[in-house]
């Protein structure tokens, strides 16, 4: 008799099956295994559902979470409003427990969702084509750089020094074996925008691509028009972007960017300690055959009815093996679903409103902080919803005090820039209320 609710086998089932196989012991099915493991694994014994729940509840409660705490921290993962309908829909188990749509005829749900997702990403980024998801913003960026090399065969990458530091690290890991050289473009120390002169100086015939973040890690909005003007057409311009900002900012596609990637968590995905998130990936149509990841296309069935299938599979690993455009197989389809529902629910109007609220609230906070005399703005470039301040209060101490007040304060830049021990990165979204902002400012004003 099975005591495991996930296992269907009764003793009789097992007996009948073993009889049929003419075996007396399941270990006979393992007779070809050398060194059969005949101890118990050093793991806990099976727990009842109630006990498991209790353990998980305890672990969960042991964390302080941003449902209970206010947060003024972003830096790649943002606490945005998610309409209730998003997770309600996505929790449908016919989405959750399906896999890659290998059999298109019984996967039209998945396929249409991803086709719609691709369309939404194209709209958002202003690009012509998009794939159906990558692991995260960082790996999407790394893959974009590999793609650029596939396009023009060159091996120097000019990369903004205000790309998210963890994206930079991932990129470094990815290109390690690829004979690619990463060259940083410095930022202008007044504006925190890319130093155009430095960019110009570093452009050469060996440059495969130029990589910038829009907005960048310090929250500042890069001038993509100026950058594109200074990046010759045969060099791939790659932009990593924060999709919510595109409710307010012109789409990268409008400036002639070649590849747009980013982290899609902010689109209807909960923060989740940073994962799972969603790498989105869009490019010009002419490069589609060089693109990594799964792509869904429209077709018809034998009666002429519209349907969707996976296309360009010959780029992929299960067919092309070591010559595939990427090794990616499992992706983040369910997160793409969350992002799709989010964008469909919010619509153009909603996304623009969210972006505007982020903008206004961030600027309201910035101005209020300046009034306290405890903070100075470090850069003058235009920012969206994040900004760097120099603080008279020690950032670590400040955050400790804020946690006592049930707030997560700004990110100490020291985490990534050891020399910036007194600088902090504030982040504000539409979920930060005026009363929280006002409290924060007056609390910090009083802090010493």
């Amino acid at each position: 008799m099975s005591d495991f609710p996930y296992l269907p086998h009764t003793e009789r089932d097992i007996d009948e099956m073993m009889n049929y196989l003419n075996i007396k012991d399941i270990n006979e099915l393992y007779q070809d295994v050398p060194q059969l493991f005949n101890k118990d694994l050093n793991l806990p014994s099976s727990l009842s559902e109630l006990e498991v729940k209790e353990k998980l509840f305890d672990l969960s409660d042991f964390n302080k979470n941003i449902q209970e705490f206010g947060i003024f921290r972003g830096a790649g993962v943002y606490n945005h409003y998610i309409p209730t309908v998003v997770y309600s829909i996505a929790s449908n188990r016919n989405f959750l427990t399906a896999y890659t749509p290998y059999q298109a005829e019984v996967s039209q749900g998945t396929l249409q969702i991803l086709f719609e997702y691709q369309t939404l990403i194209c709209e958002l980024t202003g690009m012509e084509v998009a794939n159906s998801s990558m692991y995260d913003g960082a790996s999407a960026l790394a893959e974009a750089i590999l793609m650029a090399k596939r396009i023009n065969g060159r091996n120097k990458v000019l990369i903004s020094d205000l790309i998210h530091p963890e994206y930079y690290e991932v990129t470094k890991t990815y290109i390690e074996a690829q004979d690619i050289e990463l060259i940083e473009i410095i930022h202008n120390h007044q504006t925190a925008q890319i130093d155009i002169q430095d960019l110009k100086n570093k452009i050469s015939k060996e440059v495969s691509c130029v990589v910038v973040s829009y907005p960048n890690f310090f929250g500042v909005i890069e001038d993509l028009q100026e950058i594109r003007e200074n990046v010759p057409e045969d060099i791939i311009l790659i932009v990593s972007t924060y999709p919510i900002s595109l409710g307010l900012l012109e789409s990268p596609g409008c400036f002639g960017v070649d590849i747009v990637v980013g982290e899609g968590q902010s689109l209807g995905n909960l923060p989740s300690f940073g994962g799972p998130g969603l790498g989105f990936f869009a490019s010009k149509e002419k490069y589609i055959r060089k693109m990594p990841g799964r792509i869904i296309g429209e077709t018809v069935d034998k009666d002429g009815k519209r349907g969707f299938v996976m296309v360009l599979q010959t780029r992929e690993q299960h067919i092309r093996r070591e010559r595939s455009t990427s090794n990616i197989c499992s992706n983040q389809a369910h997160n793409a679903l969350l992002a799709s529902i989010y964008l469909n629910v919010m619509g153009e109007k909603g996304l623009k409103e969210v972006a505007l609220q982020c903008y206004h609230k961030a600027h309201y906070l910035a101005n209020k902080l300046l009034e306290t005399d405890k903070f100075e703005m470090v850069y003058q470039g235009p920012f969206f919803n994040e900004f760097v301040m120099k603080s008279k209060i020690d950032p670590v101490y400040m955050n400790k005090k804020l946690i006592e007040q049930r707030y997560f304060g700004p990110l100490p830049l020291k985490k990534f820039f050891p020399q910036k021990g007194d600088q902090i990165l504030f982040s504000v979204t539409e979920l930060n209320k005026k009363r929280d902002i006002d409290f924060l400012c007056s609390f910090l004003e009083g802090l010493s």
Partner: protein
Amino acid sequence: MKLIFEKSSKGRTAYTLPKLDVPESNIDIPTHLIRKTHLNFPEVYETEVVRHYNELASLNYSVDRGFYPLGSCTMKYNPVLNEEAASLEGFKMLHPYQEEETIQGALELMYELQNFLVEITGMDNITLQPAAGAHGELTGMLIIRKYLHDNNFNHKNEVIVPDSAHGTNPASAAMAGFKVIEVKSNSEGRVDLKNLKELVNENTAAIMLTNPNTLGIFEKDILEISQIAHQNNALLYYDGANLNAIMGKSRPGDNGFDVVHLNLHKTFSTPHGMGGPGSGPVAVKSYLKAYLPKPIVSRRENGMYFFDYNIPKSIGRVRSFYGNFLVLVKAYTYILSMGKEGLKKASELATLNANYLKEKLSKSFEIAYSSLCKHEFVLKGTMLKNYGVNTLDFVKRLLDYGIHPPTIYFPLIVDEAMMIEPTETESKETLDFVIDVYEKVLDEAINSPEVLKEAPHSTPVKRLDEVKANKELKVRYINNEEQGLD
């Protein structure tokens, strides 16, 4: 059915937001950087969104509908308890950059999961960072690469991969800068030792194996293979896609594997989510610990958990933050639920199911390699050609009987392959039903092949034109009407 874009009507809205509660400031952004391009998103209302996705869900086959034996994908039941655990606020509402003392529960979970997985695989250390199996492979190969370089084995640039391997293996090896060398399978479906010995040389960096392999066959010569590898200073890489056959029965670490990746969305019951998110932790022997991606979760003497970034030789990062954390929560939940007894039992029953199904089907079908299998096996559909149909036709007809086809045309070394992995969460009744269906469809193939060629007949759409899809390449919706107006 209609696309959501085709349901749009100007002025409809599905969202609400509180009014802006701070004074508006001037928009201090250069005009050319402010969006003027119209966002052609649908304008719909909530009811419509809900109905749209409800209909889409109804078009999907899923594990919750029934038998879904995709070989090497381990489509086992995904417990609802996993989902409940991952939806706790203390997990889903965590910011990755919170202060250490505010995330001790999350860190403890990761730390324990690290230990669990290390124990199950017989390895020493592990990273939970990779987001999927292939991502783990890349991570593992980069670790191997860095290790070899640091030890002056720069010339080692070849990775040997069986001809039966998952496509991700050669792809990942290539991404990690290696040249891929294919080793043949022998008549038993195992690595051909003779061929392997010919191929291994001083340039061999690693041998990548899946064990049991994609034919469901255990590499019984694994100890010898390990010896061959190690004698040549090559490392042995374990693709964990098929771990579901051997939990508590055999540990890759004990067999000499140096690097192992796992697929938590396969073996550890986290849902596949239409393609992802997955999770692909990579475990290594202790001598490779220094190369793991950073950070890993450690424990201080005072009992506090922390992210250890102090890994100077680390290959770096393969993902932002810490991996697909909520997937980790689900896998952890599963391991607690099953315990050591349950995991072992799961593997045994997965193997029992596969052998039972294989033996029964072997009465009517040709099994590619008929020896003992583990969690999966491969049918050869060659004989179907005698009736003017093929594997594709055959499996499309299965859809009409409400069961999902196996993985097809893979592994590449089997002609007209059908790769069947029933998993342990399917009952004997289901297997018996499936056997009936297979035999019935085979009968149809013989007596009315046109039924198969035209199949499926009862699905939301009929057989789709993949050639047209690839030729015309329509990968996004274009609102022609709107285009005309612009």
